[in-house]
C-alpha cells in the first residue's frame, strides 16, 4: 500500500516535471518564432516602404557623391538577402545600431523614452482599473437601472470619442481655464537644472530624492494624459467587468450563497468578482500592454517624449534601426505581459494549476 503510494507520487512528479519541461519548450519555441517573425516583418517593411533611408541621414540638399557614399556605408548597395543576414546578426548581438534622428545608440534612446511611457501607462491603467472595475460591478448588479445606463454611456463615449479631440478639449478646460494641471511636457523648465532623473521614472526619482516640489510638478504634468488614457481603459475594463459579472451572477453558486444567507456585499465582492477576476486579468494586462506600446496621439498632444512618439517619428523618417529596436522591445513586452498574466491566471484559478 505504502509502496504503491510513493510510486504514484513519483510518477505524478515525473509527469509534472516533464510537462513543465514541455511547457518551457513550447514557450521557447513560441517566443523565438515570434521574435523571428518580428525581425522578418520589420526588415521587409523597412525595405519595401518607398522612402530612401539615405535621405533621412544626409537630407535633401546633399550632393550626389555624399548620397552614394552614405548608401555604401549603410550597406544598402548589397543584395537584399545579405542585408537581411547583417541585420539579423546585429539584432541578435543586441546591437540595434545608431538612430539617425537622435544620433544616439538606439538602445540608449529606448532606455530614455520607455520609462516615460511606462510611467504614463501604469498610472493610466491604475486609474482605469480602480475606477473601471467598481463601475462595471455596479452596472452589473443594478442591471437596467439608471446607474447601468450611465456607466454604459461613459463606456460608449470612451470607445467612440477620438482621443486627440478629448485631449485638446481637456487641455483647454483643465489647463488653460481651470489651471488644475500643468502644460504639455513631463516637467517644468524651472526644474530642468535642479532635478536629474536617474531611472527615467520622474515620479519615483523625485520621491526617492525627497524633492516633493518636483514630485508635485511632475504629478501635475502626468495626471491629465494619464487620466485620458485611464478613461479609455476604464471604458473597456468597465464594460468587460459588467459582462463577466453578469455571467457570474447568473450562476448557481450565487443562488446557493444567497440561500445560505450570505450578505449581498460578500456575494458580489468575494464570490462573483473573485471568479470574474480571472478573465479580467487578461483584459487589464492586454490593455496595459496596449498603452505601453505608446499612444502616439496622446504623446503628441502632451509633448510626452515616450516610445510611441519615438517609433512613429523614426518610421516617418525611415530611421529603421530605431524602428527595429522599438518593435523588438514592444514584442518583448507583449510576451512578458502575457507570461505574467498567465502566471496570475494560475494563482487565481486553481483549475489551471495542475496542468
Amino acid at each position, binding site marked *: 500500500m505504502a509502496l504503491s503510494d510513493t510510486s504514484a507520487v513519483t510518477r505524478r512528479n515525473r509527469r509534472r516535471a516533464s510537462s513543465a519541461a514541455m511547457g518551457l519548450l513550447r514557450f521557447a519555441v513560441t517566443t523565438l518564432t515570434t521574435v523571428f517573425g518580428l525581425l522578418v516583418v520589420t526588415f521587409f517593411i523597412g525595405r519595401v516602404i518607398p522612402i*530612401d533611408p539615405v535621405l533621412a*541621414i544626409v537630407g535633401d540638399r546633399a550632393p550626389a557623391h555624399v548620397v552614394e557614399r552614405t548608401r555604401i556605408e549603410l550597406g544598402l548597395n548589397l543584395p537584399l538577402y545579405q542585408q537581411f543576414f547583417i541585420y539579423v546578426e546585429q539584432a541578435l548581438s543586441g546591437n540595434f545600431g545608431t538612430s539617425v534622428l537622435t544620433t544616439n545608440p538606439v538602445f540608449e534612446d529606448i532606455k530614455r523614452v520607455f520609462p516615460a511611457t511606462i510611467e504614463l501607462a501604469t498610472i493610466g491603467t491604475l486609474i482605469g482599473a480602480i475606477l473601471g472595475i467598481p463601475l462595471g460591478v455596479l452596472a452589473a448588479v443594478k442591471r437596467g437601472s439608471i446607474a447601468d445606463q450611465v456607466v454604459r454611456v461613459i463606456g460608449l463615449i470612451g470607445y467612440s470619442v477620438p482621443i486627440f479631440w478629448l485631449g*485638446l478639449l481637456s487641455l483647454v478646460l483643465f489647463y*488653460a481655464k481651470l*489651471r488644475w494641471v500643468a502644460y504639455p511636457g513631463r516637467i517644468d523648465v524651472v526644474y530642468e537644472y535642479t532635478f536629474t532623473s536617474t531611472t527615467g521614472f520622474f515620479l519615483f526619482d523625485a520621491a526617492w530624492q525627497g524633492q516633493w516640489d518636483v514630485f508635485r510638478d511632475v504629478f501635475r504634468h502626468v495626471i491629465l494624459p494619464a487620466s485620458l488614457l485611464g478613461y479609455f481603459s476604464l471604458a473597456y475594463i468597465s464594460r468587460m467587468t459588467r459582462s463577466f459579472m453578469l455571467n457570474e451572477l447568473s450562476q448557481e453558486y450565487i443562488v446557493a450563497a444567497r440561500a445560505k444567507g450570505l450578505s449581498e456585499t460578500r456575494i458580489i465582492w468575494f464570490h462573483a468578482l473573485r471568479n470574474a477576476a480571472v478573465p479580467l486579468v487578461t483584459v487589464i494586462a492586454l490593455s496595459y500592454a496596449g498603452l505601453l506600446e505608446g499612444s502616439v496621439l496622446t504623446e503628441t498632444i502632451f509633448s510626452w517624449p515616450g516610445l510611441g512618439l519615438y517609433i512613429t517619428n523614426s518610421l516617418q523618417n525611415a530611421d529603421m534601426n530605431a524602428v527595429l529596436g522599438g518593435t523588438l522591445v514592444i514584442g518583448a513586452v507583449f510576451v512578458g505581459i502575457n507570461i505574467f498574466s498567465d502566471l496570475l491566471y494560475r494563482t487565481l484559478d486553481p483549475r489551471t494549476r495542475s496542468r
Partner: protein
Amino acid sequence: MIHAFKGRIRLLTTGVALAVMMAAAPQALAATPKDTLVLAWAIDDIITLDPGEAFEISAGEIMGNAYDNLVNLDINDTSKVTPGVAASWTVSDDALTYTFKIKPDLKFASGNPITAADVAYTFERAVKLDKSPAFILTQFGLTKDNVTEKAKATDDSTFVLTVDKAYAPSFVLNCLTANVASIVDKALLEEHVADGDFGNGWLKTNYAGSGPFKMMQWRANEILVLERNDNYYGEKAKVKRAIYRHMKESSGQRLALEAGDIDVARNLEPGDLDAIAKNKEIITDAAPKGTVYYFSLNQKNANLAKPEVREALKYLVDYDAIGATLIKGIGEIHQTFLPKGMLGSLDENPYRLDVAKAKELLAKAGLADGFDVTMDVRNTQPVTGIAESVQQTFAQAGVKLSIIPGDGKQTLTKYRARNHDIYIGQWGTDYWDPHSNADTFAANPNNADDAAAKPLSWRNAWDIPELTKETAAALLERDAAKRGAMYEDLQKKVLETGPFVIVFQQTEVAAVRAEVKGYKLGPSFDTNLLSPVSKE
C-alpha cells in the same frame, strides 16, 4: 444588503472625488523665470549640432546663436555682410585671394583663444568631413587635397583663402556666413577625435563655438538648452538661458503661451494666430524667410512638357484666395524664385487666376478637353490645402488632377527619382546668396538620368543649356548691381517658361508674450538671434 453596497460605492466615489480635488488645487498664473527665455518650437528636425554637418532649419537657428563666423549677414541690409571673428578683409585685384585679419584677444566659450589656425582648421575640417553642406565651401575649388594650402593661416591673426575662379566677392562672402563656415574650437575638438573624424561624433551633441550663447544640452524631440557665453566679445546676451522646448502642436503652444508657461510660440497655425490677435498680453513678430513654396511640372510627362500647358497651369491657380485664407499670416504670394530681400530679387507677380486664358492656351496645345495628371502631396498644411485649391481651379479648365497623399520623405523620394507628374513642395535657400536658388531653379548642367548634379530643374527634367550658362556667368560678375540685374533677368525667364509654378514665400511668425522685449525674427533661418532679448 443592497443598502450596504450603496454605502460602499458612495464612500468610494467620495474618496475619488476628494483625491482628484486635492491633486488639482488651483495654482497661481505660472511664469517662467526672469532670466530664462522659454521657446516652444518643433525641433524634431535636428539630427546633428555639428556646424560642419548640420543642414536643418532648427539646427541653423541654434548655430546662428551659438557660433560665430568670419563674417555675418547684416540683418539690417541683407545684401551686405558685417565683421564677425574677422576685423577686416581685403580681396586681391584678380579676385582670387581673400585675406582676413582676425580680431585680437578673442576667446571661445571654452576659454581657448581664437586664432587664424582655428579658422583654417574649420575649413579643413568641413571640406574633409565632406558632409551635406560642405559643397558651400568646395564650390570655390577647395578639395581634400588642396584645402590646407588654399585655406591657410599665415600667422596667428591672418587667414588667407584662395578661390579657383574670379567669383563675385559678394558670393564668396555670402557663403562664408553659412553655418558650415562657423568657426570651431580646434584645441577642444582635438581632445574628442575618434578615428580621424575631426570630433564629428562628439560634436553632433556637443559644442565648440564662440557665439553669444553656448549650447549646453540637447535631448532629441524634447529640449535644447542655450546658456549665455560670458567669453563672447560682442554685446553679451541679456538673458542667462534660452530653452527650446519641443512642442509640435499649434494649439498646445497657444495654450501654454496664453498661460505664461512659455514666452515664445513658434509654430502657430493661422487659426491660432487669429485667436491670439485679440490678446493684449501677446504680440506677434513676422519676417519673410528664404523659403518659397511651389509646384513643379515634370517635363518627362508629354502633356506637361508643352510650353502652352506650362503657361496655362500658371493661370489656373487662385493666388488671391490662397493668399487670403490658406497662408494668411504665414506667407505672401510670390512668383519668382528669389526670395524677397535677397540681392537681385524680383518682386513681380504677373499671374492671376484666368480660366479663359488657360483654356485658350490648352486649346493651342491640342488639349482643349483637358487631361489627367497626378500630384504628389505630403500630408501637412499648408501644402494639402493648396493642392486641393489647385485641384479645384485646374478642373475649371478640364484638367483632372488626382492628389496622391504621402508622407514627406516618401513624396520626396519619388520626386528625387523624377517619377512624379506634379510635385508640390518648398525650397529654402542653402546660403544667403542668389546663386543658391539660381543654381537649382535655373541651371541643369546635365539632364541625363545619371547626372552628377541633380538640381530642381533636373528633377523636373527641364533641359536648359542657355540658362545654365547665364547662371554661371552671373556668378563671376564682380559688380554687385550688374550681378543683381542678371538674376532679375534669370527670374523673368524662369517665370515665363519654367516648369515651376511658384506660389508664395514663407513668412515666419512668432507669438511672444508682452513682457519679452527685443525679440525679432531675422531675415534668414540662422539670424533669429536671441542675444538682444530681455524680459521684464
